């Protein structure tokens, strides 16, 4: 089975990234790391490849400094990586990014493209579906469990109040949630081998795309701080504490 995992280098995933010019995240001159949300897709891809004797290719778009983050995925496992990096892509929006990734993925035959449900920097959550559309294949989102069927995948799709069981023909684009697999740590051997694995760097022109096709059509007007989260509600237990908590949870549709 030929599996592609989309991975992204994000600035400072555990802290607050800096906003630069044009309200865009600063991606140059800052430390970039593999998006922690992508590690679940990497793990799933590796497990499916192990089950089927298949192979995993990572595809990423990002600044030249993104190589270390992509190599992190290679050190977990997989066969090769492709990074599309081009000054023309600075400030690319979700649609432009989807065009680039679809072009990079579409260079080779594939059975399954796996992506995180959303990136931990942009959070648009729209990219994978756009990639599926551009590739002209089926898509399924928010998988929390994935099983291989003959020529298809069967997945549990996370919803607000449970999950749907969905079957999706291959080839397809799939997005996964954190529950889908628990990511392995790279071993020392994996880290050493990652350096030997094929790692291609492509420009927009290499993909046969024009500058217009990858130009952003969206602009960011403003960036505001997220509103402070309100304080939680304190339930004083006057004998009815348990019932009130149950009520609250039912209201929130958790139970």
């Amino acid at each position, binding site marked *: 089975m030929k599996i592609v995992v989309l991975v992204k280098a994000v600035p400072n995933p555990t802290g607050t990234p800096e906003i630069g010019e044009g309200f865009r995240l600063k991606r140059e001159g800052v430390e970039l790391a593999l998006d922690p949300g992508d590690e679940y897709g990497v793990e799933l891809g590796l497990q499916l490849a192990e089950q089927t004797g298949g192979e995993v290719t990572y595809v990423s778009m990002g600044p030249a400094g993104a190589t270390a983050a992509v190599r992190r995925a290679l050190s977990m496992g997989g066969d090769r990586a492709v990074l599309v990096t081009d000054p023309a892509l600075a400030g690319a929006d979700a649609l432009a990014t989807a065009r680039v990734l679809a072009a990079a993925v579409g260079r080779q035959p594939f059975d399954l493209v796996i992506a995180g449900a959303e990136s931990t920097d942009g959070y648009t959550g729209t990219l994978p579906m756009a990639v599926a559309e551009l590739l002209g294949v089926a898509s399924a989102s928010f998988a929390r469990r994935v099983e291989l069927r003959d020529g298809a995948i069967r997945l549990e799709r996370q919803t607000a109040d449970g999950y749907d069981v969905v079957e999706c023909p291959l080839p397809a684009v799939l997005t996964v949630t954190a529950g889908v697999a628990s990511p392995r740590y790279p*071993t*020392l051997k994996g880290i*050493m081998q990652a350096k030997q694995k094929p790692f291609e760097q492509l420009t927009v022109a290499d993909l046969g795309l024009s500058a217009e096709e990858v130009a952003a059509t969206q602009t960011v007007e403003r960036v505001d701080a997220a509103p402070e989260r309100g304080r939680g509600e304190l339930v004083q237990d006057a004998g009815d504490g348990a019932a009130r908590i149950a009520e609250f949870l039912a209201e929130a549709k958790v139970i």
Partner: protein
Amino acid sequence: MDFDLTEEQESFRRTVREFAEEVVRPRAVEFDRTGEFPLDIVRRMGELGLFGIPFPEEWDGQGADLTTLCLAIEELGRVDSSVAITLEAGVGLGAMPIFLFGTQEQKRRWLPPLCRGEALGAFGLTEPGGGSDAGATRTTARLEGGEWVIDGSKAFITNSGTAITSLVIVTAVTGERPDGRKEISAIVVPAGTPGLTVGPSYRKLGWHASDTHELTFSNCRVPEDHLLGERGKGFSQFLRILDGGRVAIAALAVGLTQGCLDESVSYARERTAFGRPIGAFQALQFKLADMRVAVETARLATYRAAWLRDRGRPFTAEALIAKLHASEVAVAAAREAVQVHGGSGYIDDVPVARFYRDAKILEIGEGTSEIQRLLIARDLGLPDARS
């Protein structure tokens, strides 16, 4: 001079740090309280390849070096000394003698599971009657009908009684040398050999989740081919083992000192007194500055010793210096870290309280500070008190 680690070593250090933070830290208090050996974590460390770091791939090792092992021990030691010493002893004392002195057949038999972290080896040198004076070994082994018959006892042996302990390497008197001194040899005793009794776990000041037992050997028989390396070489063998072991202990001390510094800096930023963060008081700033100097100098000494060994150069004196300095600054840093934390530093579940209890052994194990000084002085060519 090049002070940079390789790119791979940097990535590896980051991985072990993540593992230590995500997998070990959440369990550290539990292990410290219960004293239970963290078997599941050891298994995961095995999957990460940590127990095979300095051994060739041929034996299921990772083909790396002592410096890389030090990075792993340091990162674990920053979070939990018990887990770090389990790795240090497993690699440095359990597997290393087999790799360095074993025959092909012995390596083939014992090394791969040790490198994979599926089994643990232990090294029994210290006896109830004495550790520093290893020449005074009383445990004996005599050849009888193609078997070594071992009698005696060993004290404080790390990793000797876990569910996955596969063997103990013991030093024993196997005869007398032409000069009248004891002939000491090392013999591999597989776990579960009749006549080997593993005593109950000690209740220790620190290193609660590290596995330590007294071992007694009574008419304990192993095949003749369990002799490790040459007969009569036991003394020089363990001196060589301790060279590398000391560097690894120094790395553990560096990790603990770094842990003390990290905890203290973050506490000094948050905690307020007299209307200011306590970190604004120069008295505490100086403590933290000293701690930083301590960790930097200890790390330099440790990495340099490891670097020498990885280049096949003599490193005995550098190992002694690193072990002595790193363990002493660790004990001092732990004391000051508790001080920075005030009363909360005295509460058991606070990391620095655990660090304080865990630090002291670093000045004792794999050669006490006195023994390090004695050997460093001897290396200066000073007269020997024994002669």
